[in-house]
């Protein structure tokens, strides 16, 4: 075996880089295309391009929430546009029509905002303290996007409330809200539970349950008078 090696590599022992063989060539740094794109293209493109790209990203994440599979898209490139749109829509739909709505017991626009964002921040703090390896904004992103089923429930409830009020009305709304509530919890658990070790998943899911319960309660007790 040793002889084979000495025969095969015999010629290499007298390779030398002497002065009369010029070492020439080009050391070119290959262009890192994504830095190029980062530098110039997002500043120079038209506004329509930017908006369409952001809208497509938001739409893609909506699809991920509606059909929750274990994927990293929501976590990897998080954005907060979707949660903002959903929160504003929900808060607007929870408004009553009357102008003198001071003591009617419904949430004001700002109250919905405060409840949603405060709740999301609290859940994120809890997840981080329990030792999860998810960043602050990723968690906010996931929780905000998973409000989508409840926003759909709010839409359906408003449509159902156009019919005549009664116990059937209430049962239908109750059923819709319960289904969407379960969907929200399943969707957010599919993303958040991976960040915790298995003996703590229930501890991280419980505040999420409370959060969506509060929002569902606000939706269910909404009456448009």
């Amino acid at each position: 075996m040793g002889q084979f090696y000495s025969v095969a590599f015999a010629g290499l022992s007298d390779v030398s880089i002497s002065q009369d063989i010029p070492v020439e060539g080009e050391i070119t740094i290959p262009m890192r295309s994504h830095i190029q794109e980062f530098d110039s293209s997002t500043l120079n493109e038209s506004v329509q391009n930017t908006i369409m790209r952001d809208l497509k990203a938001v739409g893609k994440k909506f699809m991920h929430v509606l059909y929750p599979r274990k994927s990293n898209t929501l976590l990897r490139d998080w954005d907060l546009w979707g949660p903002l749109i959903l929160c504003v829509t929900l808060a607007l739909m929870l408004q009553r029509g009357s102008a003198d709505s001071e003591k009617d017991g419904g949430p004001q626009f700002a109250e919905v905002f405060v409840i949603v964002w405060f709740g999301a921040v609290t859940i994120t703090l809890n997840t981080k303290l329990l030792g999860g390896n998810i960043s602050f904004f990723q968690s906010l992103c996931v929780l905000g996007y998973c409000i989508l089923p409840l926003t759909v429930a709010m839409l359906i409830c408003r449509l159902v409330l156009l019919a005549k009020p009664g116990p059937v009305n209430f049962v239908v709304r109750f059923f819709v809200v319960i289904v969407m509530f379960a969907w929200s919890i399943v969707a957010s658990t599919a993303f958040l539970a991976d960040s915790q070790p298995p003996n703590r998943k229930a501890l991280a899911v419980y505040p999420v349950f409370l959060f969506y319960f509060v929002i569902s309660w606000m939706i269910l007790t909404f009456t448009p008078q």
Partner: protein
Amino acid sequence: MHPTGLAAAAGTPRQPSKRRIPVSQPGMADPHQLFDDTSSAQSRGYGAPRAPSGLGYSAASTSPQAAFLADPVSNMAMAYGSSLAAQGKELVDKNIDRFFPISKLKYYFAVDTMYVGKKLGLLVFPYMHQDWEVQYQQDTPVAPRFDINAPDLYIPAMAFITYVLVAGLALGTQDRFSPDLLGLQASSALAWLTLEVLAILLSLYLVTINTDLTTIDLVAFLGYKYVGMIGGVLTGLLFGKMGYYLVLGWCCASIFVFMIRTLRLKILAEAAAEGVPVRGARNQLRMYLTMAVATAQPLLMYWLTFRLVR
């Protein structure tokens, strides 16, 4: 081995092999590995293929943005800016750590589901539990995950939030709900908790007790009563006033026993903790303090919930 290679590598016989490694890289696929030790400022000049030569003068031939980044002054500005950001973050972290000791808080959240289940059971039924001593491991207490007697902050925090929401629910069923009442309940419960903690700390200071009872420990112990309150209010919602009084009475008795057995080990001296009654004014004072703290719990539990159940 090549003699000149060895001569150049004075004192480091591994130098020749180190020089060979870049040559053997297949096609120099990843430039990042080769140029890792250059400053980040230079690696940004990728837009211009011949970045090192004629930095300012090659601006005409390349795109304006790349030339902007290839300009040495802006390179330096970017490097300075990023170092400033890193320094700022460090400063903020250090100052936050002074007021909210995050690493200490993490100890109190090192729980798992089984611990939470067992602790909730202990809070409701503490009569059969024998050993209340917290286990230590080389001078530091063991994490709550491994010892059911260790205090944690997950249960009190979650119980507090659940109590505020359940209070909102209870007021809603009585048609007295509005969302700002949630905030009001939360802040009043928080105020009572702060008052309790301050009162106990003051008494501990006045009686000059040397305990290892930290403030966070105290907050954790005082937060355990919210579990009983939630149970009482939920039963009151489902079964009326009778159910509320029954469950609240049971939870008051169990939290009283729990507090006495836990605080006895922390506040009283070692001898008294064994159950042997030791004479002496100091130990009696400590016993009174423990009894006072334990009695305050059921009173507060009733005070904060009786308005919610009609």
